């Protein structure tokens, strides 16, 4: 048996966490122990986890601040909704239709990623951030005035309602500011779970590959990386477009989870929300993104359980600030580091014990390998 590479071990732990969470939650649903409100949060939480992991690829791994991630989500949501409605008769099987729509959504996200990425990745830092912000606003503005529909004459698309000549028995899919209405809900928790797994496979393999190392080299020192022959544009674009495609798929899942979706949902605030997940989870830490997105998305909803109504968002803000302060406080991190150390030691002991169980008795001391 060879020693497992530390990175891939980390990756396996992430899969393990996601699968375990899925199994536990499914069991809880099966036993009727999960309240309606928590159940309704499962699919959007999956979407936000994928959003956070994919944004982490841009912000944490590539090291470029993006403030327009919700724009890709929006592209994915609306193209996915359109695709799902167009495919309604062709593909009667709902899960397959959802999968195809998500592919379309991912493609739309990727296309957006290329359009933004090619010209702007030569900008850096805050200038790149403002361009991504601008892009998010442009997407929102355009979808807000977009009318899309289908009738017996085919597919219609217009930028205002007076040019939108849909016949009376046609289906309007996107109606300007009203957004997409009358969407058949296809999303499910299982689909969200699978999307998270796919995201993890894509992102973790990318990060641990040759390309991933090139991307991180760009983050750590662009000039040094360039000087050893790393193609800056290629690798930057690779990370950026992958991130956009995953956001597109997450957007499709999100859009197909509600019967109506409006473009104004995917605004600056949503981009910022995802960024909060990423930073709080730790830049570059995939696991951190997953856990932070899950907990922080659910937090404001859990706050409903207390009788605080209008103080709810105030408390959320205070929690956000305190967590940021605490995690950047040396004494606190040292304390937590010690606690974490105990857990790690305990984990190692358990892992060693498990390993020794699986082996022959003569090799019983396997627990001391460094994991």
């Amino acid at each position, binding site marked *: 048996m060879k020693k497992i590479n530390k990175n891939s071990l980390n990756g396996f732990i992430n899969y393990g966490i996601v699968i375990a969470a899925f199994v536990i939650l499914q069991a809880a649903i099966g036993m009727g122990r999960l309240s309606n409100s928590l159940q309704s949060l499962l699919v959007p939480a999956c979407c936000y986890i994928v959003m956070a992991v994919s944004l982490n690829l841009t912000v944490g791994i590539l090291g470029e601040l993006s403030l327009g991630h919700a724009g890709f989500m929006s592209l994915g949501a609306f193209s996915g909704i359109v695709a799902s409605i167009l495919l309604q008769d062709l593909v009667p099987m709902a899960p397959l239709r959802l999968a195809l729509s998500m592919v379309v959504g991912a493609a739309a996200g990727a296309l957006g990623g290329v359009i933004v990425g090619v010209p*702007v990745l030569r900008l*850096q830092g805050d200038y790149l951030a*403002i361009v991504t912000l601008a892009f998010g606003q442009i997407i929102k503005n355009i979808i807000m005035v977009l009318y899309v529909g289908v009738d017996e004459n085919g597919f219609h698309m217009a*930028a205002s309602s007076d040019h939108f000549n849909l016949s009376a028995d046609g289906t309007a899919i996107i109606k300007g500011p009203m957004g997409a209405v009358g969407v058949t809900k296809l999303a499910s928790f299982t689909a969200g779970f699978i999307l998270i797994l796919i995201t993890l496979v894509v992102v973790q393999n990318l990060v641990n590959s040759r390309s991933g190392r090139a991307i991180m080299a760009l983050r750590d020192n662009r000039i040094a990386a360039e*000087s050893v022959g790393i193609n800056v544009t290629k690798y930057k674009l690779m990370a950026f477009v992958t991130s956009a495609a995953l956001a597109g798929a997450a957007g499709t899942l999100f859009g197909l989870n509600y019967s109506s979706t409006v473009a104004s949902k995917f605004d600056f605030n949503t981009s910022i929300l995802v960024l909060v997940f990423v*930073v709080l989870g730790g830049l570059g830490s995939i696991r951190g993104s997953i856990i932070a997105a899950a907990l922080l998305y659910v937090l404001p909803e859990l706050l409903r359980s207390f009788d605080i109504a209008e103080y709810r968002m105030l408390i959320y803000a205070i929690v956000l600030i305190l967590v940021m302060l605490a995690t*950047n406080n040396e004494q606190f991190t040292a304390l937590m580091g010690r606690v974490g150390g105990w857990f790690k030691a305990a984990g190692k002991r358990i892992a060693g014990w498990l390993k020794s169980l699986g082996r022959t008795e003569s090799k019983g001391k396997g627990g001391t390998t460094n994991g």
Partner: protein
Amino acid sequence: MSFLNNVITGVSLGSIYAIIALGYTMVYGIAKMLNFAHGDVIMVGAYVCFFAMNSAGLPPVVGVLLAIVVCTALGVVIERLAYKPLRAAPSLAVLITAIGVSYLLQNGAQILWGAATKTFTPIVSTDPDARLVLIPGQLSISYVAILSIVCCVVVMAALTLFTGQTKMGKAMRACSEDKGAAQLMGINVNSTISMTFAIGSALAAVAGVLMCSAYPILSPTTGSLPGIRAFTAAVFGGIGSIPGALLGGVLLGVIETFAKAYISTDLSDAVVFAVLIIVLLVRPAGLMGKYVPEKV
């Protein structure tokens, strides 16, 4: 004539963006931090002035001064409690904290002052008719717009002088260039940055009062959109450049107005941001920013 009218409208709108962007760029250029709570400090300033004038019946000048005092104090407190402990942390951590502060101020304002929109009484004149008529019936400019343009220029000149000539200003520029080196030169980096926040917040109060005088509605979320616009204007003009913030703000206002007048009111936002992207592609460091190529 409609062209001239549009220019006047654009410059009036732009001068409001500019006065916000000036405060923004101050903090942004020196503390190197995207202060997303700046827009909300503006909102607090406007509320303070509103209550001073409407509830306490104080004259506008006192209202403005009170707003400046409260905002400066607020800025210092925020800085002390929320940003200072993060001095050594990565800049994104501070960004998230600023977002938290922004939520806190918005929701706090709603609990304190209610969600209902208030109509701000313009500080220049309570008569909505008050304006400078250039050509009767065709061309006129409001006194608030004139005042905000004058304020912009005065603030810009004062800030340029301050950062260029005074000891504190030089310390600020040193911190902005290189914190480590500044510290070695005996500059107290911590207090310099705190000072920057105090000035930035005082400017936010002025901006809040002027903005609400020009566009007299006031609600707890009044500051969020101008905050983003100011950020855009600051980047447009070149981060950290004081004249750049003024230019960026005014141009942003003019472009927005022209986009509405000559292209489409439907897509004005998209047009504004598309222009911004194109400008940044041509001048990657903004209009007046210095492009500093990295050296090995």
